């Protein structure tokens, strides 16, 4: 399935399939010496913040988290991340709840249990909290709480990725 570079495990080699972004991002990628179709190895991915580092042609390249989130790659294994790392439009399934105490019950009460499916609606204008659709209602929770929820990505919100005409890429 298609995944994002930011969701990748360290140590894996992946092929850059595409960019889920405009031409500006492609240029940024090219400036780093990378292009669509290249095979890169992920060296470091802190999963929270800061740039990722990848190996390409035995050279280490650092890619900003913003850009890395737009790099689409192909992967076989299921993509498991914590809920604070998802992007708008992603559809995910809860696989594990790591929160403790009161908050755990609160989240359970809201229907956040293993197996439930969420759709990421948006991040609040200031970046936190995150808003997800769960069952039939909208729930907003802090990134901090989201961090304690492990989810499996079922589908990527590619914000119009498929429908957008992208004349600048080959093919």
């Amino acid at each position, binding site marked *: 399935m298609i995944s994002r570079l930011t969701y990748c495990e360290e140590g894996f080699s992946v092929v850059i399939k595409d960019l889920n972004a405009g031409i500006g991002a492609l240029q940024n990628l090219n400036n780093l010496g990378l292009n669509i179709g290249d095979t890169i190895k992920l060296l470091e991915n802190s999963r929270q913040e800061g740039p990722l580092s990848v190996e390409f042609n035995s050279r280490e390249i650092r890619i900003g988290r913003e850009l890395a989130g737009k790099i689409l790659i192909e992967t076989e294994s299921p993509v498991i991340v914590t809920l604070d790392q998802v992007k708008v439009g992603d*559809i995910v399934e809860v696989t594990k709840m790591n929160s403790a*105490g009161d908050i*755990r019950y609160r989240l359970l*009460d809201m229907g956040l249990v293993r197996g439930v499916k969420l759709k990421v*609606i948006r991040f609040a204008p200031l970046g936190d909290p995150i808003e997800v659709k769960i069952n039939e*209602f909208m729930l907003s929770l*802090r990134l901090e*709480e989201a961090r304690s929820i492990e989810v499996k990505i079922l589908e990527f919100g590619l914000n119009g990725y498929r429908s957008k005409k992208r004349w600048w890429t080959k093919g």
Partner: protein
Amino acid sequence: MNKNIIEKAPLISLVGPPNSGKTSLFNHLSGKNLKTVNYPGSTVFFSSSEVNVHGELINLLDSPGIISLIPDSPDEQVAIDALYAHPMFGKPDLLVVTIDANQLSRHLFLVRQLTIAGFDVIAAITMNDILERNGYTIDTHSLELELGCTVCKIDGRTGKGLDILRNKLKDKLDTASANNDYKRNNGSGDTDELISIYREIGNIEERVLLKLSEVNRNVRTANEALNILNIGSSGSETRTIDKLTLRIDRIILHPQWGLLIFFITMAVLFTSIFWLALPLMDLIDEIFSELAIISTGIFQHSWLGDLISDGIINGVGSVLVFLPQIIILFLLLGFLEDVGYLARGAMLVDKPLSKIGLNGKSFVPMLSGFACAIPAIMAARTIPNRRERLLTIFILPLMSCSARLPVFALLIAFLIPAGNAWIGGLILASIYMFSILSSSAVAGIISKFSNQFVGVMDSSSFILELPTYKVPKIKIIIKSTLQSSYSYISKAGPVILTFSVVLWFLTYFPNTDPRIDEDGLTVQQIQEIKSAERVATSYASELGKILQPVMEPIGLDWRVGVSLISAFAAREVFVSSLALIFKVTAGDDDAMQESLISAMRNAKIENTDRNVFTTSSVIGLIIFFVFALQCLSTVAVSKQETGSWRIPAVQLILFSILAYSLSFVTVNLLRVIGIA
């Protein structure tokens, strides 16, 4: 149950998740008009009413929303405790659980928990109109079989389905067993058990939810539809979340526009308080000055005449004149609440608020704090984290409440040329901004430096459901505004009247008819000089002179000091006391506020020719009022809600010190830079 043995009327409790329509149903059944708003957690205390159900008298109890039997915030704790034994009414005989049709899988969880605990339950499904608008309906019969309890559909807004509900209530009450042994889940709930209940409930939902177009009970199609819908993938994604809500949120919560809209909303909210109210205020002002003139005409300048026109009419009038502003504030707040915007606002400001130790959920209490600190402090119950709740309560008195409006309005009118409402609105807006900033600073400093101040450290969270947007019910908003305004008047009114009269007495006696040299003076001038002399030799002056040394550093004199002291009864009293002490000319043609202002302009610090009210001293006064906790009721509610005198005592002392010293600094800084 054999009712004639038991004299007490049976008790029916309305319970259900927040925002599921309990209060709406309560209002319809009881014919009362409690406030229903579109923000989860709007009911924080209980209301009860006697209701006649097909000839049988019952006690109906409305309660705060609960999500499960495991409490999360104090209001939930209270509601859950009351389920088992209400402090006043005891155990409920029957529960009516309101369930939002659009959130079955979550809300049925509560029903299941309640039935497992052994309660007698009727599930009342609300919001069916929204579900049906989205093309689905609930099969109540299947649901009854699945849940093993009575189910009916109602509409809390129109009253549809209530007759059926009444019938079922009656049936239930007649047949109810006397079993009142409830299993109590004391919080340490077993997670696996919870999860298994969830699983089961999710399955129930799939079985009872039918697509409207195929009400032939083709469960399989419904299931299929649901599977797609639950994932929320493309196409017919929104079953129940209103498409409209999604679309509006795209703008309201837009990364940039969202913030802009938020600021504009707040700015419009506070400026409109000022200029929308202006014509009405002028009208009230005029009416009261007319009344004063009429009464002087009748009683002349006897002491009775002066009591009526100065003590009573002026005192009451100078406060009533601000009623339009208060009404407009309540109206606009009610509107925003009911539409569903406030939950979004909470989400928007959670991040900055969490930085200063508060919570997005502090937003609604803080905003209501602009109306009145008392309901605001009570609304803080919806904040689950104790630390954040106490901190919110702590800073709420700094929110510029409507009782300060009269004071600010007067002082602003003193500062700016007459009739310039826009500048006035702007100054008022900046006072509000200032009060927000200073309360943030106080919160930030306290949460940073004093971890032990509030004692507990439980983990902070912000988990809030965003309600769908609803068309506001103007009628109810107006009714509840009138109610709040009425209770404002009925609470503040007697206090203000009493203080006016007491103060009038203190400023009028003992030297009621001072001797002066009347040669060559007009009647008008004689009156003016006489009353000035009377005040200067009155009891109030004796008492007030003790205050003189305290008032001098902030550029004022004992007369303002007396007004400030009387403002402890209620801040608005400040205005009426000023009117009484300074407005020495009664019954001229000017409107009251104008003549009070011109009296303020002419007032000199005694035995000098320095003005009492100058730009600097008035700005200093404004600063004083921003910080000072001059409201005994707030102190009392703060004690009640925090459970001890510690926080209110700290509030009182800290805010008084802040008020006085900051006002001192401001006045003297202004003077240094050349502003008199």
